């Protein structure tokens, strides 16, 4: 009487154990699968890119097909346009984040802005490029570095808004109350007390935004276009590393391919360093809070 039911429950138990082991094993495999691509892509980029690095990379201009050159003008263009985008996007983003956290934390308008901001955050970047094209390039009649910087600023903006909003919301309410009860006006409380406490978080947000735009290609294709020569005039078309990578990688020339890999190496290294740096800032901040 007892034995068969034992056998049944044993079999059930074993089945559940086996199913569990299989599922957990599969989850481990999925993680390995994810890491596998990461390692492969990074390894390819670093190895091929390092092989393509050469002394003239940072000093010589992008070459015509078949001849030798570097990426100086593209690196400069990328740096200038990224800097412009950060300079435009950060103040507006911090201000909008302040509005969300300090003036409209629970208000419907605040919810609406957060909603739109999150959509902007994941919106396809090529669409933002088209927007800036119709807004700036078409009305001014020519491609320009300004248009490129503006389209990158639209990518910076939502990142900074989001981090500022989140970081200000983490500042304890008692800090606001203490400052306000001393008779300090609200704008001073915000700038001298709240920003100081939220600063590491906001800086992290800006760094992450910089990491994102430094590899961004799609919005630059038809705003800043490209330029074979050195220019520091933002009203002219401007070269950028990602666009040059795109152009060179799609070409049939080996020397251009090598330059594209070198550019990819520089961009990847820069992005990885930025993300490590922002992680370090966040960690240090967390440690000092604990």
């Amino acid at each position, binding site marked *: 009487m007892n034995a068969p039911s034992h056998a049944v429950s044993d079999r059930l138990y074993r089945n559940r154990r086996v199913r569990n082991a299989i599922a*957990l094993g599969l989850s481990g495999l999925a993680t390995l699968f994810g*890491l596998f691509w990461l390692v492969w892509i990074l390894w390819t980029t670093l190895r091929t890119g390092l092989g393509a690095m050469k002394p003239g990379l940072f000093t010589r201009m992008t070459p015509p097909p078949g001849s030798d050159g570097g990426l100086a003008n593209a690196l400069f263009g990328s740096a200038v346009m990224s800097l412009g985008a950060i300079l435009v996007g950060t103040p507006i983003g911090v201000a909008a984040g302040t509005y969300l956290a300090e003036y409209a934390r629970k208000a419907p308008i605040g919810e609406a802005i957060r909603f739109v901001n999150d959509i902007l955050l994941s919106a396809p970047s090529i669409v933002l490029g088209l*927007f800036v094209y119709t807004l700036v390039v078409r009305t001014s009649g020519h491609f320009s570095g300004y248009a490129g910087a503006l389209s990158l600023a639209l990518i910076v903006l939502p990142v900074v808004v989001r981090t500022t909003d989140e970081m200000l919301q983490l500042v304890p309410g008692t800090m606001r109350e203490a400052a306000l009860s001393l008779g300090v006006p609200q704008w001073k409380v915000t700038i001298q007390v709240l920003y100081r406490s939220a600063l590491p978080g906001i800086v992290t947000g800006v760094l992450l935004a910089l990491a994102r735009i430094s*590899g961004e290609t799609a919005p630059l294709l038809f705003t800043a276009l490209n330029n074979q020569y050195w220019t520091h005039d933002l009203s002219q078309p401007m070269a950028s590393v990602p666009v040059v990578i795109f152009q060179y990688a799609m070409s049939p020339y080996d020397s251009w391919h090598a330059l594209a890999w070198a550019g990819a190496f520089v961009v990847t290294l820069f992005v990885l360093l930025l993300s490590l740096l922002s992680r370090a800032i966040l960690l240090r901040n967390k440690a000092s809070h604990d």
Partner: protein
Amino acid sequence: MAANSSVITPAITAAIVDADRRSARDARADRAFRWIVTAAGIFVLLALACAALSMLRGGREAFSTFGLGFLFSTEWDAVNHHFGALVPIYGTLVTALIAMIIAVPVSLGIALFLTEVAPDWMRGPVGAAIELLAGIPSIIYGMWGLFVFVPLMGEYVSPWLDAHVGALPLVGPLFTGPPLGIGMLTAGIVLAIMVIPFISSVMREVFLTVPTRLKESAYALGSTTTEVVWDIVLPYTRSAVIGGIFLGLGRALGETMAVTFVLGNAHQLTASLLMPGNSIAATIANEFTEADSDIYRSSLIALGFLLFVVTFIVLAAAKLMLRRLSRQEGAK
């Protein structure tokens, strides 16, 4: 006494006037500050609306010339100025679908591994490594795809699929074709690699919101880890998990550079996933600067508008579903 008060009074009045002036100044500064940050907030709201409107305006010519046929025509003829969006729309949907078929189970596995299976010391570094994958610029995926992955697909995977799966009924036509390497399957796989970190990090975060009490109750009743995940964690986080999947879908639909490199830029409608195709974003990226007529450019902007509308809907749905979980948490 009298002499005293005559000395003090002006000083006090001066102090009061000064304080009044200062508080008036503070009030003005407060109003100005409030005004500035409000304007910035409204700016964010308007930016998205302006983007949509300006693209609708830019695509007006294409919409009015081709009407609804723009959505259903497969023709893409720059010489005769006749444009239809069906091929890019089809390519966008198919590549995104392939990406989701691969990415969703893998992301679920990764999130499960990082929240329930891995030992504590492993969770931080492995999680960070997966998120690193999200930080790599999409153009790097594109280059790697074109120079490393495409040759492998062309040499080994495509011929194998063509020979072994291509003969099967039903699914066969999907996997027949020349061993080009580039094509919709390759693009879908590269997209999958790109969206895995997004989906898995959302899933990991929402899995962590499940109250330990619930999980421990299930473990105490003798559940295995798999049963806890299947019967407790997933039902509890269902809407947020779907939200995370939609977030990844939004990315996959709008991704440009990675797809442009490996899709082949061919305006043709084929059932086979091994054949080159086109997507909305890739078409715009490839052809926009070459567009030589107003109607050509307008058609491309109209494509951009379609992409915008579709991603808006997908992302809005994602946001609403993710919000349901946080509201549920707030209600506790």
